């Protein structure tokens, strides 16, 4: 009994091992060289109509550049697996630059970066601290809350009930910033607007997202936006139930021709191009790469039929200010939804202020709580 299993497993292992060892010599990493080999890691599928797709589209843009070759791996979970994946790309594929596009990769990036000081690691969304983190790690992100603010304006005008909805994965700072920006944008045109938040507990949970959308709509909410990895289900549900929706991550207007208002979209291609150009020119990129509308990191989707002329004018005017770097979303006096003052009067937290990346409150007008 035992022997059969043992021998069977041994045979297979040996078989694979023989093949493996005999091919060993072909897999040495090539150091330096003219071609820049870049690795991309995605937490989900590349064509999810959302977060991962936005990165993959950016990757595809730089793959076109001369002397650049990319290697991609998708569905890499935010566990130790990603460390092995990154190491695999370095050791087996010879990459010298890695883009770890998902949030949850941060701790793993820090660990692997210590082992490979000659490889540059770019992490999307991490909070790089110069005194603590390795010098070959860089974090990049976009101020997409500017887009959510504009979504909020569109929602504020489009909503008849003044009740808005936000479907989010988990109450982490970047998500809270989006919820707050959306609400502030809506209340800038309708001071009585409210945003009801539903947390699904995970970044990609289609049934819960559909349930959340339906529950919100059942309560009279007539505009919904979201912060989940793939907004597809929510956008489709809204279209089907005749409720407005503002998109996120990528352009979902083709899924909801009637109800799609506009959307906050990433423009990673621009970001990646700049980074690659820096590296190829021998420059050390910034460790804390951030940008908003002004820098072309994020943009808005084209307007749908539900956006009135008044709304368009207002959005374009605020967008204009953002483009000049003159618009501050988070400024005092600002209270959270328990009544506590979170930004005192006279204080402005500009987009680049790192304190925003530690946000832990929901502003007045948001129905829901961050705690569990």
């Amino acid at each position, binding site marked *: 009994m035992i022997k*059969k299993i043992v021998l069977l497993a041994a045979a297979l292992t040996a078989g*694979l091992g023989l*093949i493996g060892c005999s091919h060993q010599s072909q897999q040495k990493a090539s150091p330096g060289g003219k071609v820049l080999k870049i690795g991309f890691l995605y937490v989900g599928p590349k064509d999810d109509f959302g977060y991962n797709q936005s990165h993959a589209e950016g990757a595809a843009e730089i793959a076109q550049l001369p002397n650049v070759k990319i290697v991609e791996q998708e569905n890499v979970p*935010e566990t130790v697996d990603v460390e092995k994946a990154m190491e695999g790309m370095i050791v087996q594929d010879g990459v010298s630059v890695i883009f770890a596009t998902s*949030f949850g990769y941060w701790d793993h990036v820090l660990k692997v970066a210590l082992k490979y000081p000659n490889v540059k690691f770019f992490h999307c969304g991490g909070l790089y601290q110069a005194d603590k983190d390795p010098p070959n790690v860089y974090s990049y992100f976009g101020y997409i809350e500017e887009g959510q603010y504009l979504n909020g304006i569109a929602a504020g005008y489009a909503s008849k009930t003044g009740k808005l909805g936000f479907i989010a994965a988990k109450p*982490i700072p970047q998500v809270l910033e989006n919820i707050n920006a959306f609400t502030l944008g809506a209340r800038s045109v309708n001071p009585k607007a409210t945003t009801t938040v539903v947390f699904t*507990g995970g970044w990609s949970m289609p049934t819960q997202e559909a349930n959340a959308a339906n529950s919100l709509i059942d309560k009279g909410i007539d505009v919904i936006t979201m912060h989940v990895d793939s907004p597809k289900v929510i956008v489709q549900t809204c279209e089907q139930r005749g409720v407005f929706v503002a998109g996120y991550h990528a352009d979902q207007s083709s899924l909801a021709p009637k109800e799609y208002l506009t959307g906050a979209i990433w423009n990673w291609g621009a970001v990646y191009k700049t980074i690659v150009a820096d590296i190829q020119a021998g420059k050390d990129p910034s460790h804390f790469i951030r940008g908003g509308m002004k820098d072309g990191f994020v943009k808005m989707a084209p307007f749908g039929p539900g956006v009135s002329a008044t709304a368009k004018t207002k959005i374009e005017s605020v967008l204009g200010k953002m483009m000049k770097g003159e618009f501050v979303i988070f400024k005092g006096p600002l209270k959270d939804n328990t009544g506590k003052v979170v930004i005192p009067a006279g204080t402005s937290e500009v987009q680049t202020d790192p304190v925003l990346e530690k946000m832990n409150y929901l502003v007045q007008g948001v129905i829901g709580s961050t705690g569990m």
Partner: protein
Amino acid sequence: MVTAAALLKRNVSKTGIGAQLGAILAAVVLFAVFLVLQGKSPWGVLADMGIGAFGSSFAWQNTLVRAAPLLLTALCTLIPAQLGLVIIGNEGAWLLGGLATSVLGASLPPSWGIGGLLLSLAAAAVAGGFWIGLAGAGRQWRGVDPTISSLLLYYVAWGVFLFLVEGPLRDPQSLNEPSTFPLPKEFLMSSLPGTSVHAGLLVGIAACLLAWFVFFRTRLGFDARIVGENERLGATLGLRRSLLVVGACAVGGACAGLAGGIQIAAINHASNASLNAGVGFSGILVAFLARQRPLAVLLVALLVGGLQASGGFVQRDHNLPDATISVFQGLLFLSVLWAEAFRRDPSGGNK
């Protein structure tokens, strides 16, 4: 090692081997056909699986790091299986074990050094043992099917884990990936010298050898296996039988829990959602592929670890979806089961 080799020599049966190797070959051939239908080179993919698993020192370490926890999580299915139960809730025990280590480890004074580490790991074993023990108790005293209940317990464990980790037990510093407080460095498990593989590998090997010894060389194990192979004869053992069943579940759960704790102490250092990586579920696969035999687990864990390690490499090299490896694992599992039909010797086997 000597005993194992002697055992091997004593029990060779040609027809059985032939069928098993044939099954492996069949799985490989089916997989190759599958790949050809997708327009991919089967030879290239299989070669990459070999390279990715065993083709370099990096690959080997990758494989061993993955195999180490599988040795323990497989026991969570294997040990109760000796008594005739099918437990598939390993992942739940793993999660709660990891959580227990995180919580205790972060609360004890770092000066306790290795004692703190051992206590934290013990807590992991207790948590996992309790959880699966519940499934065993449910079966013995309420007639609740332990296969289903152990799986349902996984769903409950996951929900509770997330609730605690992202709520009351959350480290306020862990903003973007809500986690528990990290273990102090005095409690961390180090790697085996010269490698990136941690000492958990040795724990796993020891556990498998111990399991073999207990079940095949002691009276207790003999009694336990009686309960598994013959219900009526087992019934004559009375209360002892219930204790054996619950005990086996608890020990199996303790193994999976311990594996989770080791993962925290050696690799993750704190508990968060990323702990749910399917290692518990892979343990089920290893146990079944090894036909519930502890010594076979040693090699099968290596094989499955290698398969999983090669996944990323295969994906990148051939532009294949990561699900490719699951398909192969499934085919392998199915083939091995099918080969069971050709076994000649009369020992056990359920219908």
